[in-house]
Structure formats: structure tokens, C-alpha cells
């Protein structure tokens, strides 16, 4: 009979899973350097965008999206995510891009919006980067919080997800 040196602790495993679900992604446990933040990057139309990693609850493949009539155009409908009814957004028009076209690399970023979780369509996922505080844009109403330049010279647009989703507050 095989004996394990440590018993399997299902409660510990479940607690960890619940913490990960309640908080942000825990992909990087290091504390960012002062004056920097850890950002999850993604692509829209070949341009790089980013969200603070703590804003992202999970990343999911895109399943079948059920349209719901009478909603703003950016709110594509709902998706069944492991039994959860998840509203799905295409926020590309908010930054002046055409609406999303489906592709195999497309993913959903699941973020919190008030008391609910919502999915935001992205063309593909980039890296997790530590970026310096972005240069703030002059137009405070813009959904782009600021811009940073990565070490390889790529321009990163930091998305203000709360401002972007605030346009669609439930009535």
C-alpha cells in the first residue's frame, strides 16, 4: 500500500481556489517595485492595451454568446460560464475601433462591475508586464487611463475599465 508523506488537504485546496476566485489573478506573487504596477496586456486590432492585473478575475475562452435584444450595441449578450450567466461586452468601439470579429485566439477577460462579473472580449492575450506609472492623458473623460512605453518600445494603452463599463450601468 502506498502511503503519502502528507495527507491530501481538500479544504486547503478549496480555500485557495476561493481566494483566487474572489481576488485577482495570482499569477505573480511578487510585489511590484515602487512606482510601478503589474498589468495584464491584451490586443485589440493589433494595438496593445492593459488592465491592472488585480482587476481581472479570470481569462476564459469564448463560448456561445446568446443575444439579448434591447441592449446597447456594445453589450453582445450573455454566455454560460460554468453555470454563471455572464454579460459579454465588446468595448472596442469605445476606443475608436470597429466591433470585434471572432477569431480562435479571442478571449474573455472576466472583471468585476459593481456586484456582478462581466466578460470583455479581447482579440488575444499578451504578457504580464510591470510598467511604470503611465503618462496621464489630457482628456480625463477618456477610457484610456494613460500610456506607457514597454522596454521593447511597444506603446501600451492602459484601459480604465471602470470608466469604460460605467457607460453601461444597469437601469
Amino acid at each position: 500500500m502506498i502511503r503519502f508523506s502528507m495527507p491530501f488537504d481538500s479544504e486547503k485546496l478549496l480555500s485557495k481556489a476561493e481566494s483566487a476566485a474572489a481576488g485577482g489573478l495570482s499569477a505573480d506573487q511578487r510585489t511590484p517595485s515602487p512606482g510601478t504596477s503589474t498589468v495584464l496586456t491584451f490586443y485589440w486590432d493589433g494595438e496593445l492595451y492593459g488592465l491592472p492585473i488585480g482587476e481581472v478575475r479570470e481569462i476564459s475562452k469564448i463560448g456561445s454568446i446568446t443575444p439579448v435584444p434591447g441592449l446597447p450595441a456594445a453589450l453582445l449578450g450573455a454566455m454560460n460560464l460554468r453555470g454563471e450567466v455572464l454579460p459579454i461586452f465588446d468595448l472596442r468601439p469605445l476606443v475608436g475601433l470597429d466591433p470585434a470579429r471572432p477569431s480562435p485566439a479571442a478571449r474573455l477577460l472576466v472583471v468585476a462591475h459593481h456586484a456582478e462579473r462581466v466578460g470583455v472580449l479581447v482579440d488575444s492575450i499578451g504578457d504580464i508586464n510591470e510598467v511604470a506609472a503611465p503618462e496621464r492623458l489630457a482628456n480625463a473623460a477618456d477610457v484610456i487611463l494613460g500610456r506607457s512605453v514597454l522596454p521593447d518600445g511597444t506603446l501600451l494603452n492602459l484601459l480604465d475599465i471602470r470608466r469604460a463599463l460605467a457607460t453601461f450601468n444597469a437601469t
Partner: protein
Amino acid sequence: MSEAVELLFVKAAGQTFGIPVEQVERLVPIEQVERLVPIEQVERPVPIERLGAKQGALAAGLGFAPDTGRRASHALWSRGGTAWEIEGLGDIEILPLETLRRLPALLRPGAGSAFWGAAVAGEGLILLVDLDRLGSTPESPTKDTPKKRTKKPKRSKT
């Protein structure tokens, strides 16, 4: 045994919706429903419609844009007195309450929306419709309408 709800699945706007069976009075194949056609559209003799003063496509009632490519398969009369054209008829299924979900606030298009929830079905979702919250009431069929054969939907347990 857990509580369950009995739903009739119908097609409208190219997708499937669930309607509580208790809201459905009867279903009639569309070819058996006589149609009122505005006089200016008449190119040849057509039967008289008594479905009501206006066409009641369920897709339009739910807020979808009209699609002339879709054809009605049945007319559905609700116990509330409304009549709706549907594009296809599915089964009656008994779903455990655990498969039902409230629609998130963002997905409730406003007061009067006929959607009251969603059923989790495999990897997809089926929106659930309350017929009593839909549009206005067309006329009921008149007394002298020929007796219509009604199709009893198949029942299946899940």
C-alpha cells in the same frame, strides 16, 4: 426530488426560448391559420386571416429586428389571450430549478422586458420568456373559424 419547472421550447429570431407550459393555451400549425392580408398586398386570392388585427411574430414581440428570411411554423396562443407566430417547435422539458438563473441586472433591458431568467443548458443558455409581459393582445379566433387540429407537443423528461 428537487423542484422543477416545465418549459415549452420554441424557436424565434433563430434562437431557442423557454416558455412556462402553464402559459400556453394551444399551438396550431401556421398553414391552418387563416390570414388577413392588407388589400394592397393581394396579388392572388388568399384565405382570410383571423389571427388578429396585427401579425404577432414572437421575435418582434421580444424586440428582435424583423427578418423576412424566417418563416413561421406555428401560431401559439397564450392563456393570457395573446397569439404569437413562432419559427419552430421544440420539446416540453422538465428542468430542475438548479438549472435556472436570474438575469444579471445589466441584461434586463428595462421595465416590461419579457425575459425573466435563463436556463443553463449544456454549454449554452436559453432565455426564458413570460408571455404575459409581451405586447398587446390580438383578437381571438372567431366562433365560425373552422375547428383547428392542435398538435400536442412531445414531452420528454431531462
